[in-house]
């Protein structure tokens, strides 16, 4: 901070306002486009386009976060030790995101499996076969009363 003149500081503030404002407008425009609000024929609701859209949104948000931390919060003018002691612990979140999203998908898969198993029909073992119940294949609750 200290090595910027007052005029330069004011310019930085104006630049920050422009950067954050324009990125936000672009984000919202792309979001509306991707969800089909601007043109009914163009949208990125699924598949590769959807992933690209999400990556783009995350990228823009990370850039906004970088700008706020480094210029509005003056991280760019702090000593290296302070920067590292704040940013290094935060990088642990990368793993948290990967692990918990993986976990979330697994909860979903298990819920589906339990639902499927709950709806299965069974019949008693026929004579001469090992004791127990046999799953009737392909029923999945479609015709069990």
């Amino acid at each position, binding site marked *: *901070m*200290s090595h910027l003149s*007052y005029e330069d*500081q*004011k310019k930085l*503030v104006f630049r*920050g*306002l422009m950067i*954050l*404002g324009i990125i*936000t*407008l672009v*984000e*919202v425009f792309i*979001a*509306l486009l991707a*969800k089909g*609000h601007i043109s009914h024929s163009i949208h990125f*609701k*699924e598949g590769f386009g959807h992933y690209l859209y*999400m990556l783009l*949104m*995350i990228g823009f*948000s990370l850039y*906004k*976060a970088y700008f*706020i*931390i480094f210029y*509005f*919060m003056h991280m760019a003018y*702090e*000593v290296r*030790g*302070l920067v590292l*002691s*704040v940013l290094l*612990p*935060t990088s642990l*979140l990368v793993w*948290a*995101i990967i692990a*918990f*999203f993986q*976990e*979330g*998908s*697994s*909860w*979903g898969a298990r*819920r*589906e499996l339990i639902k499927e198993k709950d709806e299965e029909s069974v019949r008693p073992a026929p004579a001469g076969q090992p004791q127990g119940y046999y799953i009737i294949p392909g029923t999945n609750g479609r015709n069990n009363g």
Partner: protein
Amino acid sequence: MADNSVAHAHETHGAHQEGGHNWEGAAEPFKASYGKLMMWYFLVSDAFTFAGFLIAYGALRFSMPSWPEPDFVFASFPFLKEGTHWPLVFVTFMTFVLIFSSVTMVRAVQEGHRENRRGVVFWMFLTILGGAVFLGSQAYEWTTLIVKENVSVSRNPFGRHLNDGYLVELDAQGQPVMDANGRPKPLMKDGAIAEVKKGDSYLLHGHRHDGKVELEQPYIFYTKGSDAGELRPVEPGPKAFGALFFFITGFHGFHVFSGVLFLSIIAINAASGLYAARKNGYEMVEKIGLYWHFVDLVWVFVFLVFYLL
């Protein structure tokens, strides 16, 4: 925020004195005052709290076969007639309010470094105003969701259809009507069958009786996918959505609220000349500035997770 007494005054904008006595020891770690450094570490811990909440949102969303579409849920705007669909416009306005108040906060800190009391108070006043407008906007958003759309922490009338089909005509008791062939009779809307497509958003309208909310229960006859040939009631969307939305945006709103309180206290102190007497470049303003930018920073991610993705 640790209070720096006059005896511990120090120049943040000037050169650091050799062998300063700010931390009682010989030197300042990281060339930052105690209060400023601790504010940074508080913000790191707060970032982890918010990240935990947002990651929980992501994990629960990934575990559900469908999730409400944000541009469908957040489409209301004040002073417009009901049913107006302006997706994401109001949250964009809220985002701009926070960006502006962040910018005015930077100006307040800069004027503080120049020991300009009037400038500090003026820019802090604008910052507080921005915070108040944001809180008011959030109150409007919550009211719309709770009162008009009947979302609560345990009820979520927003959802998305999992398969193609058509809406079924209901009799006076709310039961599906069958045609002569024993197939569910399609509901006609503007002379056409009310079809639903996989991924379409819906809102189950609610009715209040004696303060209790009852959601409508439409039926769908599915024509495609794994449910083909089945008649099923339209279920409310994932319950967790309401709880996550109110808890996370509420926690952020609480940060804004406490930020406005602290900003007001510090603005009054600055106006009274308290910080001018400390001759430390209005460090208190700088510290609350860090907090306020952090609130804006968190909103960047709340905006991303709740409204954009």
